[in-house]
């Protein structure tokens, strides 16, 4: 009996890490702010308080959290199937652009129901991009890491071509499409912030993904494919199917993130409006140990950090550029194994 208790403790260590990594991250950011800021006390105060200071900041933090949750669910799904989707940036941007384009197409219709095809367009755009990488992987074993990244990079430039060219809003000082009509926007739950029902959809999606991955036969087979594809094939699981499906679903989730960003936050697709979201989503997913339920707090945490950063650039003279340094330092530490000891090289053979 003692044996099993000790085993539980060992596996429990993993969940402990999820709590202490954010603590380390906060400690590191405090340290960096104290070093870099000329008014550390004030800066620290705004760093911690601004996300909760006004409905505007608080709502936007939750809204951002929603985006991060959905995108990192996409990362997780592919990861669970044993692969890596590096094309999140492009897939999100494609979703955003497709939604904006669809919304502009439907701008003459007054029914808010048309938001459904608008969201679907974005989701479909992302899914198509994901499908290509998954299909290439399955059919010819093309490295999915590279193909998804290249496709994403190409997509970003192609979209920029449209945004700067034929679809540009000539009257705006920004490089952007026209704004979408009001009836196609998601309702603001906490004005003036951009919090919208998308946040709750994101939480629901996380719970749904958890149920799919851990409770259904499909999720079982997807996870087994990821853990050992040879054995999964040996056991009669259609591994190729899960390769393609997980990548397509991942693209769809990324695309949906882009759609939500356009319909619920920016109301237009400006150049690079979703830039960085894909990378942050990978970080969220890794911090959350690729578990859909842990992703919720993990996304909340990253969003809190980002909101805190924008808070201090707004309220103090802390330059915006420094915030990326803080984020970098946090990223360095967030997966560091403080307690790790021994060599990883031995385990393989003993």
């Amino acid at each position, binding site marked *: 009996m003692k044996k099993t208790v000790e085993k539980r403790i060992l596996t429990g260590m993993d969940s402990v890490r999820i709590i202490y990594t954010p603590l380390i991250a906060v400690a590191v950011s405090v340290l960096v702010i104290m070093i870099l800021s000329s008014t550390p006390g004030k800066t620290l105060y705004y760093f911690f308080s601004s996300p909760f200071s006004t409905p505007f900041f608080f709502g936007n933090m939750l809204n951002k959290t929603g985006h991060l949750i959905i995108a990192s669910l996409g990362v997780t799904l592919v990861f669970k199937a044993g692969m890596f989707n590096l094309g999140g940036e492009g897939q999100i941007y494609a979703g955003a652009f497709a939604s904006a384009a669809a919304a502009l197409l439907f701008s003459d219709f007054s029914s808010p129901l048309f938001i459904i095809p608008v969201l679907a367009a974005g989701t479909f755009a992302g899914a198509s991009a994901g499908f290509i990488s998954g299909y*290439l992987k399955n059919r*010819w*074993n*093309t*490295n999915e890491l*590279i*193909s998804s*990244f*290249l*496709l994403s*990079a*190409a*997509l*970003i*430039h*192609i979209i*920029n*071509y449209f945004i*700067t*060219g034929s679809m540009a809003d000539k009257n705006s000082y920004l490089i952007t499409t026209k704004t979408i009509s009001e009836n196609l926007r998601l309702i603001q739950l906490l004005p003036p912030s951009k919090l919208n029902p998308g946040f709750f959809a994101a939480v629901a999606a996380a719970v749904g993904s958890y149920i799919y991955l851990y409770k259904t036969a499909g999720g079982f087979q997807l996870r087994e494919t990821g853990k050992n594809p040879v054995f999964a094939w040996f056991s009669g699981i259609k591994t190729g199917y899960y390769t393609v499906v997980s990548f397509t679903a991942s693209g769809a989730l990324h695309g949906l993130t882009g759609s939500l960003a356009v319909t619920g936050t920016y109301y237009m697709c400006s150049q690079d409006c979703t830039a960085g979201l894909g*990378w942050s989503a*990978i*970080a969220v997913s*890794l911090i959350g140990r690729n578990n859909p339920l842990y992703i919720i707090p993990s996304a909340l945490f990253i969003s809190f950090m980002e909101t805190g950063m924008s808070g201090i650039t707004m309220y103090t003279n802390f*330059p915006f*550029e*420094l*915030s*990326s*340094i803080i*984020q*970098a*330092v*946090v*990223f*360095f*530490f*967030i*997966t*560091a*194994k*403080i307690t*790790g000891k021994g*060599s*990883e*090289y*031995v385990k*393989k*053979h003993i």
Partner: protein
Amino acid sequence: MLKSIFNAAVPYILAGIGGLFTEITGTLNIALEGQILTGAFWAIAVTKITGDIYLGLAAAVISSTLISLITAFFTLKMKSNIFISGLAANMLSFGLVSVFSIVFFGNSGIIRIEKEFADLRNFFFILSLSSIPISHYALFRTPWGLRMRGCGTSPEVLYYRGINPDFYRYISILISGIFCGFAGAALAFSIEAFVPNISAGRGWIALVAVYMGYRKPAGVILSCLLFASAESLSGWMQGFIAIPATIILAIPYIITLSVLTGVSIYRSAKSG
């Protein structure tokens, strides 16, 4: 035409060789991008301040190496996830470059210099060409190269025989830092300016070139030339057909993706 291809290829080749060293020891160094950016900034910044292009070159190499050492420390010593610490290194590079740009020049925009770089251009050209035989010799003809390659395929075997794989990984990341410093300097000197986001995905493309080139120096360089040709070709085509500049940026990626797919179709047909 050929000349413009080679000029475009120089930064790719230098970064690609840097990436080759990390790949060969089994280290996925996605921080190449940030290292190039850092190198480019310090090359221009120091040249502008001191007026000496060679000091600028030295600054590029040193700064890029420092960034690579930070990545190496976190991945090898602190055992951070290599992907995340690579992302962090890229963010850090961006942040530091912007901050120093503000400190030195008052803004974080374009920094121009007016200098004659003919000598350096030849230097970069010779450096990138000679890096093929030198890295091939070092990696495939010396005991050191055997150990570097062994690190990538079977680190635990080296460990069993009393050799610390992490030491070789440190070295490989260090080398990638040096080469990316050169790549960044070459890039900045070729347009006689530093522009924010000057690296424009070159670090990533260099990594792709390493994969496509079967992790062999000659293959890496061929892949880099392919990218450079695609880049020059699209620039050249602009003179004839009215293609907007933005879509041209996408062409290297599309060509690479097509080649990558072609290579994998060929490989899977070969293996049956």
